[in-house]
């Protein structure tokens, strides 16, 4: 009897699981149309909303950061998995090797990265990039500057051609 009752519970649970999956799927579909700001609000509304935002397919955002604080904020965000391409502009991130270490550790899913690295790095820092990068737009900046400054010539960037 116990076995039969157990089976009954399992049968009763199946529709609930299906409804739950449907609910999750519906949320994911709706969230796919959300802006970043809207999704940031959605994840704090309810636990299942947050779960949907974290399980849905990546929204493949392109994000720009300028300061090491931006990097730290991004790396601690639950929505960081939706960032597909990250562009770090300005010298502040370049001057902070810990930012790149943080990106490598917390943003391993990144598909593309545009970053300036100031060389030589401090002796305690090992240069490492996020592991799954397919596109790396790397500007090397030598301490003190070489001839022509950092070598970055914005007008000639040709990433868009590819």
């Amino acid at each position, binding site marked *: 009897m116990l076995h039969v009752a157990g089976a009954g519970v399992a049968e009763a649970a199946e529709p609930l699981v299906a409804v739950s999956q449907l609910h999750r799927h519906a949320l994911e579909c709706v969230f796919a149309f959300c802006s970043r700001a809207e999704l940031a609000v959605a994840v704090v509304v309810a636990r299942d909303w947050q779960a949907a935002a974290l399980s849905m397919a990546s929204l493949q955002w392109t994000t720009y950061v300028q300061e090491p604080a931006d990097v730290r904020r991004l790396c601690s965000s639950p929505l960081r998995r939706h960032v597909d391409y990250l562009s770090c502009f300005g010298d502040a991130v370049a001057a902070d090797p810990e930012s790149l270490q943080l990106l490598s550790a917390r943003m391993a899913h990144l598909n593309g990265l545009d970053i300036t*690295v100031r*060389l*030589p*790095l401090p002796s305690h820092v090992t*240069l*490492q*990039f996020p*592991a*799954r*990068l*397919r*596109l*790396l*737009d*790397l*500007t*090397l*900046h*030598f*301490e*003190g*500057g*070489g*001839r*022509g*400054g*950092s*070598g*970055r*010539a914005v*007008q*000639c960037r*040709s*990433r868009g*051609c*590819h």
Partner: protein
Amino acid sequence: MEDGADLVAPFNAALEAATDLEQLETLYVYVPLVESAIPGSLTALTRVPSLRGLQLEDGWNVPLLSDAHVAELRALTQLQTLAFNRVDTPLLRRLLAPPHALQWQELRGLGPLTEADAALLVSLPLHTLQAKLAMEHADFLLQLPQLTALTLSAAGDGPPDTERILQAVGGCAQLRELKLLDGVKAYHLHFSSAQLSNCLARLPLLQKLQLDDAAMLTTLAFLTAGSLRRTLHELVLRDFSQRVPLADLQFVLQLHELRALTLRDVFDAPLSSPADLPCLLPHLTRFSQDWTFW
């Protein structure tokens, strides 16, 4: 400033870190060259079979590459794009000296290009070329049938045969993007409206057209040539030394697929109401009467 020798180890370590990325498909490296030279070795890049792009920059200086660096670059046979801001012809000859197994599809900043240099280019499967011509013609383009983007200007010591050059350009039937930079210096591409019409009529896929410093254009009627009215998405006309009548705006307005438009110093009178242009061109999302990039 660091001494060049002090930069070798960090530079090599940076490339090593980049080449450890197993899924890397495209790597752009911007290097502030030291006395125009690469401060280290490019050998690490040979380990990345999916490496597609490499850009070495030194402002607008021509890089001074040692024989060792030229050999390293020639060993990167997986590269599709090798971009410099400027490549002079001696460097080009060293890079493309036969025999080679290079597969570059994109070369920018070339020139002034002589016939001997052009003969080297046809050994590459180029689809994007930006060059200054230092010769009468551009017949080598006929041996680059896969070309989809072309930027040409003239920089020779004698007058170019514009008719012949435009005939060669018109032979590149796969072109999606064409920029003709006429120039106001002694020898430049003085193309006429009729010559341009004949050329453009042979480019059925053209989506982007840029004409700078046109000196002999008297009308924009060439915009109705061939299938431009159906294919052209972006049009940039700038700095015409001989202005065309404002009435020729009608030819621009026939480009029904236009998404982006830049007009600067083209007409003999100001546009009466530029704000109306987006209404007249249903797909237009960018309109500029000033500087623009594409």
